[in-house]
Every structure is written in C-alpha cells, then in structure tokens.
C-alpha cells in the first residue's frame, strides 16, 4: 500500500461523555468533511450524552482523576483542588471560553454543522438499552440507531477511529 493513499472515509467512535472526551471526535469528523472525506460519528457508552437532547448542552470537564489538569497560569492542579465544589464548573467554563475564541462551536451547533456538511450521526443500540434511552430522548439530528454489526457495515472500506 502506498503511503500517500488518500483517506476516503472515516468512522469515529465517541465513547466518553466529558467535554474533552467528545470534542476530538467532533473536530475529526468536521475536519474530514472539510477535506471531502466521508464521515460517520458513532456514539456509545458515556459518549451518548453528547446526543441526548437534554444533556448535550451540559457536558463538562472532569477535574478529579485528570492528571494533566492545570491551573490557568500553567501550574499543575493539585488533586484535592479538583474536588472542591465548583471546580469542574469553572474548568468547563474556562474551556468553553477558549474554544469559542478558536471558533469551535458548542456541541449541539457542532453536530448540526457536521450533519449539514454531509456527515452522519449514529447512536449505539446497546448503549441505548443499557442507559434506558428511547429514540425521543436523542437529539433530532441522529440519523439512526445501530448495532455493532450495522456499524461495521457503515464503516466498511474506511478507517475506524476510537476516541
């Protein structure tokens, strides 16, 4: 296989539900469409929060158990500090500000942008059952609910990224 072979299709699995867990997948999917690459987004496990209508605007950052968490002036955040009430909300607010400066849209707007760009958004059947979610709980833009087998069919011929 030539090293310069172009990527034609990418299927991205989003399995985490924190803001920092969801954004890489969205940026990769949108970036793929910008390059003319076919893009599928498949949400599973806690990543489902990004496509549950009532939750998708409230995703946050985990300040506990995040070893790379830093304070605004660059110093490492002591673990106990992350446990203080309001720290997660503060860190989330900070990140949203920085994202906005870079023109990264909020999750709902970003998903709509990817959809308008021709990307497809899928929910995982197993995760739906596990979290007792119904179709009407999902964001209206979700294209379909897929089993693992369905997912592989959609992903056929392209590359799969797990985030």
């Amino acid at each position, binding site marked *: 296989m030539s090293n310069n072979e172009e990527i034609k299709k990418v299927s991205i699995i989003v399995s985490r539900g924190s803001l920092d867990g969801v954004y890489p997948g969205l*940026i990769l999917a*949108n970036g793929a469409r*910008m390059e003319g690459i076919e893009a599928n987004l498949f949400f599973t496990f806690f990543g489902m929060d990004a496509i549950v209508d009532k939750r998708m605007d409230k995703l946050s950052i985990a300040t506990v158990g995040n070893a790379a968490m830093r304070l605004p002036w660059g110093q490492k955040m002591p673990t106990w500090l992350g446990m203080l009430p309001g720290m997660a909300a503060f860190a989330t607010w900070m990140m949203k500000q920085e994202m906005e400066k870079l*023109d*990264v849209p909020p999750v709902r707007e970003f998903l709509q*942008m990817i959809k*308008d*760009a021709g990307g497809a958004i899928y929910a995982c059947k197993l995760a739906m059952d596990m979290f007792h979610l119904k179709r009407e709980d999902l964001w209206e833009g979700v294209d379909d609910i897929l089993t693992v087998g369905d997912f592989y069919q959609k992903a056929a011929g392209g590359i799969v990224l797990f985030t």
Partner: protein
Amino acid sequence: MPVREILGKMIEFDDDGHLKNLNDWNEEIAKELAKEEGIPELTDRHWLVINYMRQEFQKIGDAPSIRKLTKESGVDTKELYQLFPKGPAKKAAKIAGLPKPKGCI
C-alpha cells in the same frame, strides 16, 4: 516552485497548489482555477463566498473558519458544500487565490 500557464500568463503556485502571489489573482484566473477544481461555472453564490474569503484574508491574514464564513457570508453550511463539493474550505481558498487555510475548524 511549480509554474503553470493560465490564460497566457505564467503563474507561480505553492506546494499545495495554491497561488503563490495574491496579486496574480483576478476574476478571469479564478474562473480557470474553478474549472480545474471541477466547478464549470462560478455563480453569484460562489462569488459571495470567494469575495468574503478574500476580504477576511486581507483583515486577518488567514482564510476564515467555515463557522465564521457561514455565519457572516449568508451562505449556510449545506449550500457551501454544494457550491464547493469535496472540501469547501480548501477549494474556495484555492479559487480565491489564497493559501491553504491554517485553521482546523
């Protein structure tokens, strides 16, 4: 540096295939570049995007993000992808005579 003849004029391109010199650009060249990108005719809607991109580039030194472009130019995301299929940001920048956009969004 690749040099190609367009409309009887020798024009320099960068390694990404975008115009090397902004000043080489004019509307006739844009039409030729569009044909090379598989867009046979530039409509008023294409021009709206192209002119907006050039205007932003002069202001900030980079092509605008798709989000900014769709919010401010009056062309929404769906239409943008129809106008410049298979890679709107890069394609529109190329036709507008601008370097490859630096942003990720």
